[in-house]
């Protein structure tokens, strides 16, 4: 699907469950909660924004929910375009906005505890490059 319309470039992003948290503690599993329907709406909005901002052909976004284990895929974003810079920029833009707008929350599970992940301040900073 991503190779239609005279495509010359495809950029894929894959986010995976890390094996350790920021404090280097071993992560056993991770549960992704989401807000049904709001999440889908937000993802659609982000994809539409990207399509308006860059000359791209196709966008594909998949985000998993529920319990996931280290090394498993969490999110996939694929963008195809005629020229590569548009695909790189649109894919990076979509990831930045997914990270700060799409209503998902990660619960990290360690040996004896569980902990909701706190949003990194860098995620808000990351959006500045698009304005």
């Amino acid at each position: 699907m991503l190779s239609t319309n005279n495509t010359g470039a495809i950029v894929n992003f894959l986010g995976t469950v890390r094996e350790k948290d920021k404090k280097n503690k071993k992560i056993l599993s991770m549960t992704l909660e989401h807000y049904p329907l709001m999440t889908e709406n937000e993802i659609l909005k982000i994809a539409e924004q990207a399509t308006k901002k860059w000359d791209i052909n196709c966008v594909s976004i998949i985000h998993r929910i529920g319990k996931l284990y280290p090394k498993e895929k969490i999110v996939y974003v694929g963008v195809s375009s005629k020229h590569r810079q548009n695909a790189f920029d649109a894919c990076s833009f979509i990831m930045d906005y997914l990270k700060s707008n799409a209503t998902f929350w990660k619960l990290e599970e360690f040996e004896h505890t569980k902990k909701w992940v706190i949003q990194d301040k860098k995620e808000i900073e990351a959006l500045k490059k698009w304005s």
Partner: protein
Amino acid sequence: MVSFIEKFINMIIRYFSWVKDIVGKSEEIISISSDIDTPEKLIDHLIKKDEKYKKAFDKRNVIKVAQNKIYISKSTKIKNDDEIAFFPPVTGG
């Protein structure tokens, strides 16, 4: 005898992530005075009701709000039959 007629409105309130954990439920239907017409006022109302809400909204500037599944500010007007959601900044992706 009351000197005014108080109008009540209903709302579905949803909580996610640690807000849900502290409040102790993921959703509830509440009947409130129609004077409560912004998320700000709704939070004020909730924290007076129970210690759990007080704790959940302790850092209220951090909490995000959605009205019928769309992000809104805490001063946006909310109304009867709205679905209002409170949650921390998102951490997916």
